[in-house]
């Protein structure tokens, strides 16, 4: 790895570390990152006849989905509103490093919360995790991709609600289309085609395979590749949008 790349990655980690200290306990983050997935868990689990092998991996994916996406919505918009984004832009840091740092902060939050949920609900429901290593990798990759998802939406926002509203408009339909409530296979073909264009589908599929241990290599590779492609595309779009915002 060349020196410039190492420098950029180190700076991205510094930005992520700073974001963790500043934004992890902001009110919208607690709302969408902690409270919402908790209530979702109870809605799923109490008085319903859904197999834990179906809903638990999906619930972890949704936790990661909401928690990861909440950080950069709050951090980017608050940084723009408070003028601290200017401080980052005037530092010797590329715009892609700023975006990556923010995504890492979101990923960290989503990953930690998802792992806490996993640690609590899996033993409670008596559901054993069959491929724990793959599951952890899946949660990390999903969290990074979901963190990047909110980035293009948050680049121009000056307050968290400005970004939260459009992001939720995107997130809530995704929950119905991506195999969280309804198994993917049960969806009509046309909706399955739409679902294939959404990253949550691949995350749910990946975590389900890891949780149940019924891994199909081809599907697994497709899920990982799709999440990586979504991640790179979203980071690229967010960087371009940030560049455009300072034109």
């Amino acid at each position, binding site marked *: 790895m060349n020196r410039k790349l190492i420098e950029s990655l180190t700076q991205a980690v510094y930005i992520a570390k700073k974001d963790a200290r500043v934004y992890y306990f902001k009110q919208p983050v607690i709302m969408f990152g902690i409270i919402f997935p908790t209530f979702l868990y109870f809605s799923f689990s109490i008085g319903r006849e859904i197999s834990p092998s179906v809903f638990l991996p999906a619930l972890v994916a949704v936790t990661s989905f909401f928690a990861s996406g909440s950080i950069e919505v709050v951090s980017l918009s608050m940084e723009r509103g408070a003028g601290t984004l200017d401080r980052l*832009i005037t*530092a010797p840091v590329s715009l892609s490093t700023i975006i990556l740092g923010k995504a890492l902060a979101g990923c960290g939050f989503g990953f930690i919360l998802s792992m806490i949920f996993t640690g609590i609900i899996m033993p409670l429901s008596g559901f054993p995790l069959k491929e724990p290593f793959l599951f952890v990798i899946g949660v990390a990759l999903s969290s990074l991709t979901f963190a990047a998802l909110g980035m293009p939406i948050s680049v121009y926002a000056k307050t968290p609600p400005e970004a939260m509203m459009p992001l939720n408009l995107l997130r809530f339909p995704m929950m119905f289309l991506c195999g969280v409530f309804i198994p993917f296979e049960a969806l009509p073909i046309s909706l399955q085609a739409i679902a294939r264009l959404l990253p949550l589908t691949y995350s749910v599929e990946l975590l389900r395979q890891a949780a149940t241990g019924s891994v199909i290599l081809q599907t697994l590779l497709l899920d990982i590749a799709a999440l990586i492609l979504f991640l790179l595309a979203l980071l690229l779009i967010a960087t371009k949008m940030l560049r455009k915002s300072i034109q």
Partner: protein
Amino acid sequence: MENAIEVLDLTKHYGELLAVDHINFEVKRGEFFGLLGPNGAGKTTTIRMLTGLTKPSSGTATVAGYDIVHDDINIKRLIGVVPETSNLYGELSVWGNMMFMAELYHVPSRDRVKRIKDLLELFGLYGRRRDHVAVLSKGLKRRLTIAASIIHDPSILFLDEPTAGLDVQSSRLIKELVRKLSGEGKTIFFTTHHIEEADELCQRIAIISHGKIVAIGSPEVLKAQIGEGHVIEVSFDKSSKSLEKSFKGEDYVISVTILGDKLRLHVDDPSEAVLRIVDFAKNRGLRVISIDTLRPRLEDAFVKLTGLTPVEVERLEQIRPKKRVHT
């Protein structure tokens, strides 16, 4: 490299609005340079273009020899930026903010603690290092913003209205600190709409109005450009109104106006005029209560060059009391 900053035909449009209109100037290495202009004249836009916060619509500029569009990362390693509004993280402590800046600006890890400690002591903030920035006063935040912007020891420092909205004491302290940094050989690029502040601090000033540079030079050169002679304000133990006519007849006086209990005399040669006024008082048995010779003021040059009225300049606020040379 003699010039720290070179600006050539720099222009910025925001949609229909022409914020900066083909400006040209250069700032020498180690110079204290001021960009003076009323609110909305284009000062902040200029500084934002030079520091990479916005791209120019046309024209070019170099900072430390690097092009502002293509080499912005190299420029950012060499400059410090103090924005108009303190932009630190209120949720982090004073020390935490400084540490984050040190990390971001590649200050070697072995030097970070010492560098931060030295700067906080220099800026009188070491005792507050554990406090969250959110609880600091505006003046302290300003000091910390400047300290954070020089964590990497930049050779060029951009300050956008650094004393705006501060009380007199904080403002004076900030000016002292900036003067000290200038004394260390740093190039200072300073924007302000405080005329007296620019006069007091800057070696050269560019006056900007409606996005255009209307004059550039040292404060004294700018004052001399307006060529309006000198002014003497004098008051006697007799009504100024009753003396107005007598002074109008004196050959060394160009014009006379009454200013409260004072007479304001426009003269060509202030030293001769002072002697003649003393003679005038002796001959009439008058007592001189006060006599002040006013140097040509930067404010006069500013008013003339920007086309603003004195009332509008007053509204621009905080014009300090007139500087007087007591005789």
